[in-house]
């Protein structure tokens, strides 16, 4: 018998597995986006469970800005090797070199927004028709509005005002050639659910999630990791601190904070008393404007 777990996690797990199987059953060429973050690690775990004892019936894709934490890339490669899965890397660096996108300049330059082009380019090149993502509705208000099976036109765009009705657990993944579906199996999970599940299941995560000593500098109230990809502004100064990261993305837009939480249980304790959302605490990319996420999503972002 399986380990006893709170029934809401069981229910969420079952819902996610159902979604993943449904998407795979009705597509020709699915792919799972994997950033090395906790949400994509969770989706990967659920996908493995969905098809067990068969192997994962689709490849895993990482949109690599080239500005990642080394720990995250290590984790990615280890995880993929253990699963004997097939990894595709869509490289933003390559897109820049080929002149498909132009790199931002200045101390606040980030490749975050450039990821959209690399993602859409790879979807087109590999003819993926279902793209699994780890977005959750509790993360952000535009995401709170998105369907589980979210239609993208041939330009990869999302039209929030024209979404397909999605009733019961009857998902409509039909689309024409060149269009695709983004499928979000953990739409209904909260950050706390994710941590509780990770704790119960012993899901492995990159070490940057846990408290560690690191050279950082302060920007916009967050502690940014010192790296070759971020230039310091005149008043900024590097110092050493004991930090952890609550989300992991590109180093140029992911901020950490001081924390002593070194185990999943300690993180759960920390999250349960936190008064700030994970995006508010650690994502420079969402701070630009009230509707920043809605705008990026319309263009085809994750």
């Amino acid at each position, binding site marked *: *018998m*399986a*380990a006893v777990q*709170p*029934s*809401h996690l*069981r*229910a*969420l*797990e*079952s*819902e996610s*597995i*159902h979604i993943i*199987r*449904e998407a*795979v*059953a009705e597509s020709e060429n699915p792919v799972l986006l994997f950033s090395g973050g906790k949400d994509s690690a969770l989706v990967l775990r659920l996908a493995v*469970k*969905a*098809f*067990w*004892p*068969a*192997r994962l019936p689709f490849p895993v894709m990482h949109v690599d800005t080239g500005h990642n934490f080394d720990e995250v890339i290590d984790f990615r490669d280890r995880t993929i090797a253990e699963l004997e899965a097939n990894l595709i890397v869509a490289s933003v660096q390559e897109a820049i070199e080929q002149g498909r996108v132009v790199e931002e300049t200045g101390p606040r330059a980030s490749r975050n927004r450039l990821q959209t082009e690399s993602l859409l380019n790879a979807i087109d090149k590999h003819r993926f028709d279902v793209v699994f993502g780890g977005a959750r*509705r*509790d993360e*952000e*208000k*535009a995401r*709170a*509005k998105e369907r589980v099976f979210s239609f993208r036109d041939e330009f990869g765009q999302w039209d*929030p*005002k024209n*979404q*397909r*009705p*999605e*009733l*019961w*657990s*009857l998902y*409509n993944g*039909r*689309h*024409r050639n060149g269009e695709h579906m983004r499928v979000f199996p953990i*739409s*209904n999970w*909260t950050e*706390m*659910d994710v941590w509780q599940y990770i704790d119960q299941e012993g899901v492995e995560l990159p070490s940057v999630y846990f408290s560690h000593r690191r050279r950082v500098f302060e920007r916009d109230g967050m502690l940014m990791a010192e790296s070759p990809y971020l230039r310091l502004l005149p008043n900024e100064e590097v110092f050493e601190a004991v930090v952890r990261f609550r989300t992991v993305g590109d180093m140029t837009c992911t901020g950490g904070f001081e924390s002593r939480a070194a185990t999943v249980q300690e993180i759960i304790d920390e999250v349960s008393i*936190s*008064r*700030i*959302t994970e995006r*508010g*605490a650690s994502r420079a990319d969402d701070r630009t404007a*009230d*509707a920043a996420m*809605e705008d990026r999503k319309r263009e085809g972002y994750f």
Partner: protein
Amino acid sequence: MTELVRIATTGSVDDGKSTLIGRLLFDSKQIFEDQLVAVEDASRKRGTDYVDLALLTDGLRAEREQGITIDVAYRYFATPKRRFVLADTPGHIQYTRNMVTGSSTANIALILVDARLGILEQTRRHSFLASLLGVPHLVLCVNKMDLADWSQERFEEIVDEFRDFATRLDIHDLRFVPISALEGDNVVNQSERMPWYHGPTVLELLEEIHIGSDQNMIDVRFPVQYVIRPHRREYQDFRGYAGKVAGGLIKQGDEVMVLPSGFTTKVRSIETFDGPLEEAAPPMSVVITLEDDIDVSRGDMLCRPHNQPHASQDIDAMVAWMSEGPPLKVGAKYGIKHTTRWGKAMVKEFQYRLDVNTLHRDETSETLSLNEIGRVRLRSTTPLFFDEYRRNRETGSFVLVDEATNVTVGAGMITGEGS
């Protein structure tokens, strides 16, 4: 053990649905500081002199600009007992289909009424839709009591009027609470301004309503989603059928019948990544292996030989139309998705369109346009294995898809076999 409970808010425009959800989150301390700061900023920009908690769920640019809810927003919160999924649905008549969407999986519908205005057309429409969609528990929240002098008389007037209307609906569990979503009375905390009310607050109700029997635990229904053939040495001969239990309790060793083939066999095992189970019930996702090597594929259904669903190509159903495009009419063909099965369906007969305000059946009408509901007879290319929607929401529901645009255009609730 925390239970997952799904709630939808419904009611007419501006009755305070979004505000109520904002208040529930706020008073149960489930709002984060940065979210609150963002909402305060946005409220100030719009010139409201209080913090507009509706902005917590109205997340799209167009919604904030117009101050209304357009699409369903999902919010989440937890108490030690329960983990809630809240669907905030729009009240505007133009977006009724989004209300239907948000209610389709709800255990509880919170119906909001403005105490000054009482029961409106849209209140009746939404209450009817909630009952049609089989939401098992309805809570009528008489809101804006602050603008009705906290009057017990006014509350009781509305309760009586609603009770009267509700007798014509199929509602098994109906509760009433007087509240002020804006000021927080009887939402999470007991109101001091309505000492005449001794019942539970909205949150207390949400925590206490018994939802254990909302799912069908009697009729075994297992729509096959995916066939698992590992092609790995350790699992050479493994052949499993993946799916989510849609009804009943399936046990290892049970005799089962496969539809449409009609073969019977036994459940050899119920498998999961975490190990085998002795039994599985809704809404568990599992893998079932069978004793005999028979042909089973996606779209097939496992059931007990002495408790089979209806199997028919002809079905009668209530259909809610969700498309701005061409209306539903006799002779039209659509893609149909029912459980894990896709097929084509043709409208054979238009029985009536329902006036959702008066519940009058208009038998002279012949079409359904956006947001309209009616009863039709459909014929599908392949037999469907179904139960009446009232008996099982999973095996009694379907969606219709426009084959030219691939858009979901209709939501159907099966009333029975067409004959």
